[in-house]
């Protein structure tokens, strides 16, 4: 007697969109149930999540997650499940840190513009290369050693964290950190964010609108990058030969073989492109918002690399739906974090003697959606059969 898992001959009737929406809703549902179980009134929980859809704080996550969504979209199109965006980002952080805090470190408050731009560009290029190499490494292991890419990319994440931890404890540790294990702050001339002053009017609507405007202005450079990456991804997948190869790799690698393409090289290349965009995102995030990295390394990215998996899946691998999907994921996740500062939640956490509500809630939401999504996808694609 043996139980085997086989792909359905015919996927279930409900399509990708239903799965996407259903997993979001059931994620929120599970999340709310959990809050209710620890004694929190569900009504404000749901209200907080819903109102976060119109909340300027979403903008930052939205841009980062869109960029990473594209990074993963490329790999997923080739049926390569790159869950290593985290590691690829961290390797990119490290080279950016090296360039901005060691090689070109300065205590000046301002430098000639061409120097600032030069250093930033150098840092970005190096980050892109680092991300591509770290991604490519996963590709090489997958393609030439035949190891499944999911554990490989996951392990490479931890190796990247580990390398980063060592560096932050050692050579990268800052001079002005009062004993903390972290790097110095990025010198002002290398910052990419644009400081915006904003007066609150007291009118909720006006403040929301100006809030969004201020956020978009602050991250204007990111937005430009987002548009470029969108165009690049579209071009890659729809115009270039590499993109065509990636798509066929995802659909029928046997066809690639009989055409005489090198399937392994295509895999490595796909991973490199994916990692390159993750690296770019890391550089932008570091120059525009993070400004330093600290121990332990995995906290620096706020799990963006994992959330992006959700973004790519929910977009149903459609180039145009990635921003929408990123926005929804940002809002829901940020919403779950905001839930943790509700008075009733704080009270419940104190009562239960729990700490770290913010992280816990975020992970809970992430986990619930992912779980719901995986289960639904699984049911859609596979069935269990018994062979006697």
């Amino acid at each position, binding site marked *: 007697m043996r139980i085997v898992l086989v792909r359905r001959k015919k996927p279930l009737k409900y399509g990708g969109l239903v799965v996407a929406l259903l997993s979001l809703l059931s994620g929120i549902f599970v999340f709310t149930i959990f809050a209710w179980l620890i004694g929190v009134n569900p009504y404000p929980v749901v209200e907080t999540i819903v109102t976060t859809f119109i909340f300027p704080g979403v903008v930052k996550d939205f841009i980062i997650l869109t960029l990473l969504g594209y990074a993963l979209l490329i790999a997923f199109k080739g049926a390569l499940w790159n869950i290593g965006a985290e590691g690829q980002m961290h390797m990119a952080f490290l080279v950016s840190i090296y360039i901005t805090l060691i090689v070109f470190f300065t205590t000046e408050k301002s430098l000639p513009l061409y120097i600032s731009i030069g250093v930033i560009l150098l840092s970005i290029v190096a980050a892109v290369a680092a991300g591509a190499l770290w991604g490519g490494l996963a590709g090489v292991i997958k393609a030439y050693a035949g190891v499944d890419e999911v554990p490989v990319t996951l392990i490479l994440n931890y190796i990247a964290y580990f390398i980063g931890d060592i560096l932050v404890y050692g050579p990268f540790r800052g001079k002005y950190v009062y004993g903390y294990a972290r790097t110095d702050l990025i010198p002002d001339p290398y910052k990419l964010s644009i400081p915006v002053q904003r007066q609150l009017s007291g009118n909720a609507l006006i403040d929301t609108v100006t809030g969004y405007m201020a956020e978009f202005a602050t991250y204007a450079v990111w937005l430009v990058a987002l548009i470029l990456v969108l165009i690049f991804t579209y071009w890659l997948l729809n115009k270039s030969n*590499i993109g065509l190869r990636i798509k066929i790799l*995802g659909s*029928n690698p046997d066809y690639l073989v*009989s055409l005489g393409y090198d399937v392994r090289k295509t895999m490595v290349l796909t991973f490199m492109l994916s990692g390159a965009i993750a690296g770019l995102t890391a550089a932008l995030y570091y120059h525009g918002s993070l400004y330093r990295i600290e121990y332990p390394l995995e906290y620096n990215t706020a799990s963006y690399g994992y959330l992006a998996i959700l973004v790519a899946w929910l977009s149903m691998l459609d180039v145009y739906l990635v921003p929408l999907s990123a926005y929804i994921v940002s809002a829901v996740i940020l919403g779950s974090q905001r839930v943790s500062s509700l008075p009733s939640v704080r009270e419940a956490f104190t009562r239960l003697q729990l700490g770290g509500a913010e992280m816990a809630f975020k992970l809970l939401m992430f986990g619930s959606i992912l779980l719901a999504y995986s289960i639904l996808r699984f049911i859609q694609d596979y069935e269990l059969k*018994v062979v006697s």
Partner: protein
Amino acid sequence: MSSPLLSVANITKTFPGGVVALDEVSMDFHPGEFTVILGENGAGKSTLVKIMYGIYTPDKGSIILKGREVEIKSSLDAIKKGIVMVSQIPQLVDRLTVVENISLSLTRIGMFETMTRVRRFFKEVSEKIGIKVNPDAKVWSLTYTQKQLIEITRAILLDAMVLILDEALTYLPMEERRKFYVYLNEFKEKGRSVILITHKIPEALEIADKIYVLRRGKLVGALDKASANIDKIRDLMFGEAAKTITYERFTKPYETPIGDIVLNIRNLVVEGDYGEIAVNNVSLSVRAGEIIGIAGVVGNGQRELLEAIVGLRRVREGRVIIDNHDVTNKGVKLTRESGVGFIPDQPLRYAVSADNNIVENVAALFSRKNFVVNWKSMRELSEKLINEYGIYPPRPEMHVKLLSGGNIMKTVVSRELEYASKALVAYNPTRGLDEATSTFVRRKMKEKAVNSKLAVLFASEDLDEVLQLSDSLYVMNRGVLYGPFDPVSTPRSKIEELMVV
């Protein structure tokens, strides 16, 4: 006359994109009757039987089983109701063995059998219909035809009342096919019903009690044994194009002197999927402008030989020389780049990316050297192939998986023939194509060989095809190549004998 076992009434099915696959189609299937459904590629045959098998739901119309209107929700439901289909595309689980696959299906309908009993059943049935497949072989290592045989056996073990065979017999060797028809006759005598889809019309006429003809989704003919004849049927199926069908050798205008050796195969030894010797010391050469055909029953090493020649399979001993360059074990890339077109066994598995559209499938081969694909010219090329080969529906943006079996084959054949500039290596080049299209493709191969000085090497399980097309032919049996023979002067019986000894 008895009442029908199964009927479909006024079935209409339109697919997204507006293709009317079936338009008000009604048919009756009586117990003890052998029904054949005929129609050109894309006529709607597979769609109709898929509806009976619960894979598609009709937009309109009803299915009546033993006098009662039924809804068939899934193929499992169909099997439980006694309707079993063997589809055009094998539906087995590759990772499992033959016996495991069969046992899996039995389990699903609640028939629990031990592996030993299934193995014995399988042996019994397969001996009766005369097939040779190792019941413990993993399915992935089998050829297309062998997979279909397993599916047929499985259908019988599932105790089908209505057995639907969608082009499932086409490539059984004549002898085995005859045995199988005898078996099917026994089967139908027990009050069961057989529905067969085929493109082999002469045979259909021999075995059918009743023939239905579909054209562009409409039922255009319902004939019984007495009223059917081949010209009438071809006319119903193809209209004007029926006149082009021929099995005569292509001679006169094409006879030009042949050129230098392009494909030179020296003492080739190639292993099969289990490390057994599949190709045993084979030598042959093909000159520019020449067509060499290899006849043989499925599973005698033809697939392995052709794969080794194009570089898809490792050569253990011997040499493959293309255009005076030794390409032995140097990979597919090199052979492709030297202008070799290749039509593999299982084209659906190895020769198309089903989730991509026709243009993308074409571009993957023709734009291999361009960093940026020239989509405009790829589209034009696709349109040209669509027009030339009558790919239906004529939409370059259509995902390949939405085309009918024969139309998928047309995209493969047209693309590879177009690409081939030095040589074409092909396995069953007209598998799944209707008679008019098959004739067209064979004519095209002949034309291309002569006009573009192409060296053509093909293996086919269809002896008529080998006899029609080859300038000289070989027979492959258990890895050994016999020949060359002259297709005109060699008696057919001699070739058939060599195929099965």
